[in-house]
């Protein structure tokens, strides 16, 4: 349930933006959920809802979008998507779930086998935008 720590972080950021902007009403929060981290959305949503009690914004303002994970190999230049990498076992996926950089430990470029690759997108939880009311 470390999704709770991430939900807590999202709320802390929205709360900071809300305070820094004169406590204007929060209309919407776009949250990108990076595919690599394998966030359990039900747990994450429950965490958000529970942690939102007595906050000046409600769960209804949150909108979630999945961000597909993609990679590029620094050695051969090939690019690939996470779902093209099917050889990861349960324990490796669990490690990546906790710490997405563990992908560098367990994944290799499907073309040349190099461990020297970059994650282009789709890592974990980020906030794409926070919309506040004008009044």
């Amino acid at each position, binding site marked *: 349930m470390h999704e709770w720590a991430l939900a807590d972080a999202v709320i802390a*950021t929205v709360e900071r933006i809300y305070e820094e902007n004169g406590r204007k009403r929060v209309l919407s929060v776009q949250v990108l959920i990076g595919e690599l981290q394998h966030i359990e959305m039900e747990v994450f949503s429950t965490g958000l809802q529970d942690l939102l009690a007595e906050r000046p914004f409600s769960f209804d303002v949150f909108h979630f979008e999945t961000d597909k994970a993609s990679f590029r190999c620094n050695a051969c230049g090939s690019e690939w998507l996470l779902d093209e990498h099917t050889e990861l076992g349960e324990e490796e996926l*669990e490690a990546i779930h906790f710490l997405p950089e563990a992908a560098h430990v367990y994944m290799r470029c499907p073309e040349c086998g190099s461990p020297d690759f970059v994650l282009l997108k789709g890592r974990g939880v980020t*906030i794409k935008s926070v919309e506040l009311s004008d009044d």
Partner: protein
Amino acid sequence: MIDPRLDVIDRRLEPVGRIIPVSSAKGGVGKSVCAALLAQSFARQGYRTGLLDLDFQGASAHLLLDIELEFPEEESGIKPLRTGNLDFMSFAAFSREHAVPLRGSAVSQAMLELMAITIWDPLEILLIDMPPGIGDEIFDVLRYLRDPEFLVVTTPSSLVRHVVERLLAMLSELRVSMSGVIENMVRSDTDTQTAELASRYGTTVLGSIPFVEGIEDLLAAASRGKTLPDKLANAVRSVSARIASAGASANGLSSG
């Protein structure tokens, strides 16, 4: 894009008293050994102690302290592994004994993630085993962790001292708080050059750790209940007492 992890790191570290990154500009000087010796010593003296291994690519603190790696327990985040009075967190809990081939940006991401999701119980002191050099981890510690007190490890080697001086100069230039310098692998204590080096950058030598053959094995055995050789144990106790007394006057570190 906004990274929400940055907004909780301070809060995650609220239960933590002093934060002491154990650093050196040079590899192989025994940073991890010093960090592990001090962590073990503080924990045995009754201080609630944490050890965070930020040397992702060369994680070894778990080997020195004979800590069996397992996935951390989840509880609104992840809980450090606990052994007695010592709480421990390391990338190695996720990478085990595999190589960790990370470039700089991935190192920073991993550190931010660990800092954002690790739920520390109240600690009087958190030691950080830093990787060698002046790179991402040092800048990230300076940027994201509040009031780190750098402890710099050197050896009597003139080459090491020369390179370590660059770190001391940078920390001094950035006006970073320094808890002091440890001289490790010392065979005789007649040398005054390390004291002069520390003094040039406004800090002091906290003490010397003697060169002891097989110190890694002795440390691991001590984690299983054996005692360290007197000379080594006394040296570590003396250094930890100086760190504790500095904290007692500056930050209210209390005896456990």
